[in-house]
């Protein structure tokens, strides 16, 4: 009997609360109990989110939290001393220079390809620079926004050299390793289905496990982006008997990802990239930027370097933001050569300014 009374009370309270919570945040019901009311008032404080822009949050915090890879040599790599190095790390540094004027106001979060978008959606990181391919579903369904590409990549296969594989069709019946949670996984499945090539997929969460499976001959091929393939081959140069296939099976434009709906923050990421492209386009390097600044007659170059229109101020940055980026980090070409071109022997390919036959086109600074 006693239990039944208690149960009835609980049920009634459930009903009351469901009704009061169902309506769009009406005033806390005083009709429940006087004891419960303070609890209602006290609880929301930590969970209700302040609506501030990412830029403001970053400035208040004093550093940018960047989602990166920790084991992709050339692009982003965690070194033995605990610091990060690589192409994408330098892009993050450019962003830090744009916002704070120095390249060291960064905190890196190493993420797997599986975790990366969730980390961005949930607000754990401010920006994601982690070989993320731009595509429509990520842009729309995942609640993300992308900048224009900072790297044009394409997917291919790395195979053993001595077993007579030259085209994709030779891979009939082979075991192929691929990273899970990446576009390579879906691309591989799609192209193999369309070409009706039977294969055995083997998916791995991180690059090291996948490499170890390939080197031990557990799989016949790995499917990765061309840039990764080059890095992969450079790492095992002495092993010598691996090669990348010529075929490119997909377009992989890599972009910087931010949360959907914060266009001010996206603008900063986007125009930071354009500043890097502009430097590359007009041969403004970290070495000659001071000289260019004092001698240039081009109004656009003046705008970029902070002597013309106040572009920086309009984005909530200092006016010499782009000058500082090129001065402290270098232009796109310098970053590329420093991290990929010289140590990894990656060729520029499409990753050149439009006036040199590539695809990079900095929108006008006007």
């Amino acid at each position, binding site marked *: 009997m*006693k239990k039944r009374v*208690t149960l009835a009370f609980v049920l009634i309270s459930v009903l009351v609360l469901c009704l009061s919570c169902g309506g769009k945040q009406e005033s806390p019901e005083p009709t429940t109990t006087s004891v419960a009311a303070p609890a209602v008032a006290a609880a929301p404080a930590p969970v209700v989110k302040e609506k501030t822009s990412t830029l403001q949050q970053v400035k208040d915090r004093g550093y940018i939290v960047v989602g990166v890879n920790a084991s992709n040599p050339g692009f982003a790599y965690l070194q033995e001393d605990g610091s990060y190095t690589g192409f994408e790390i330098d892009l993050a540094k450019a962003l830090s220079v744009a916002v704070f004027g120095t390249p060291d106001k960064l905190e890196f979060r190493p993420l797997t*390809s599986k975790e990366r978008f969730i980390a961005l959606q949930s607000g754990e990181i401010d920006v994601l620079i982690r070989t993320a391919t731009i595509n429509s579903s990520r842009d729309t369904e995942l609640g993300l926004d992308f900048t224009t590409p900072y790297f044009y990549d394409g997917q291919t296969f790395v195979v053993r050299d001595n077993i007579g594989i030259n085209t994709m069709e030779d891979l009939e019946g082979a075991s192929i390793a691929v990273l899970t949670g990446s576009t390579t996984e879906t691309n591989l499945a*799609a192209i193999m289905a369309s070409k009706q090539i039977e294969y055995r997929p083997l998916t791995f969460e991180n690059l090291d496990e996948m490499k170890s499976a390939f080197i031990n001959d557990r799989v016949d091929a790995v499917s990765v982006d061309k840039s990764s393939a080059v890095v992969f081959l450079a790492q095992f140069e002495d092993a010598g008997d691996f090669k990348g296939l010529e075929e490119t099976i997909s377009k992989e434009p890599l972009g910087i990802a931010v949360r959907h709906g914060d266009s001010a923050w996206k603008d900063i990421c986007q125009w930071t990239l354009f500043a890097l492209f502009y430097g590359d386009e007009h041969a403004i390097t970290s070495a000659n930027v001071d000289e260019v600044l004092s001698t240039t007659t081009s109004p656009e170059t003046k705008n970029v370097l902070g002597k013309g229109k106040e572009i920086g101020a309009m984005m909530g940055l200092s006016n010499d933001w782009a000058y500082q980026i090129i001065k402290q980090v270098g232009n796109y070409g310098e970053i590329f050569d420093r991290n990929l071109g010289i140590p990894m022997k990656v060729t520029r390919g499409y990753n050149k300014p439009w006036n040199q036959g590539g695809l990079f086109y900095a929108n006008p600074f006007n």
Partner: protein
Amino acid sequence: MSLTRPNKTNIPLWQDTHKRQILAQFIFAVLVIVIVSLLYGNIIDSLSEIGMIPSFRFLRMDSNIDISESIISVDNTSSNLRLIVSGFLNTISISFLAIIFSTILGLIIALCRLSTNYLINKLAVIYIEIIRNIPLLLLLLIWYRAFFLKLPGIKEAIIFGKTLQEGGQTQLSFSLSNRGISMAWLRPSDHFTPFLVCMAIAFVVAIALGIFLKHRENHTGKEQRIILFPFLLFIGLSLISYALLPNAALQKDIPVLGKFNISGGLHITAEWFSLFSGLILYTSAFIAEIFRAGIQGIPKGQIEAARSLGLSHMKTIRLVIIPQAKVVIIPPLTSQYLGVAKNTSLGVAIGFPDLFAITGTIINQSGRALEMIILVMAIYLTLSLLTSLIMNLYNSRIQIKER
């Protein structure tokens, strides 16, 4: 409640234990509901803000990915739901087999551990102590990377029964490489159904014989072989029917060496076997200790009493030790079984596509983290509660009835 309370109206609210309890319960319920609804509202708000209103519609969409092993057939046009089912079947099948084998191995190790032979005893101790104190993930990684991946490659595979066919094909009865194990296997042919019917009849006949023997035992008091004879009858009848049926019910499926891989036959991948054997090694060490506790928990007097009644060694174990040990063993054993089902999720580290691995992939490809996490939690919970229910039913049946 037939007793009426004296001066019912005079008791202040805070001194009435009964009402106070109700009030406390009420406040607690209110608190829980407020917190849950706030969290829920918060999630919905922040998801709507970035344009992701929770929905389960994505389950019907194409998955766009291939997975390495599956019991049901899946490809990149299968729906996400079908992929989840496939992962669930992978999880279920591997945990079911792992539970059975680790129980058997656990029993053997427990018996070794209880043995009076110094060497056997110490070996069992070393096994249990080492395995129990290594994290399972580490065990799996060592097992996979240091053992299975280091096995010879497919070209240098360890091979038994190699025959060259006319078409230039090479058949292998058994092969072991770092891709896994391939072996010749029997598969049901097109004429399998009549054989299945015969087996069913044989089963019914065997059960009838069992009941008859039990009946006779109860009547005459003479001990009968209730298990052995019906079992032999079943096997015998099945074999006879197989031989007598006009078309063979089973056909041989012998693996064939291809350019890269071996196809056909029964193929066990290195990943599956790593996870399976890793789980067995790990779980059996715990189960061995549970068995030992159960057996040693029986007072020595029981065994001495059985001996003095003239029961043989085997009969002492079967009639005195096991019935009493079971009571102690079942509850902790249930926890171990639940652990196995959940531990299969570590297969993600070595590329085995279990439920958890597939969930992760779908989360990443569809971006539906909240929905998928809720779904996968519900699945694991159902699985665990089901295991628990079965074990609890069994437990309540074997509990010593105290009157």
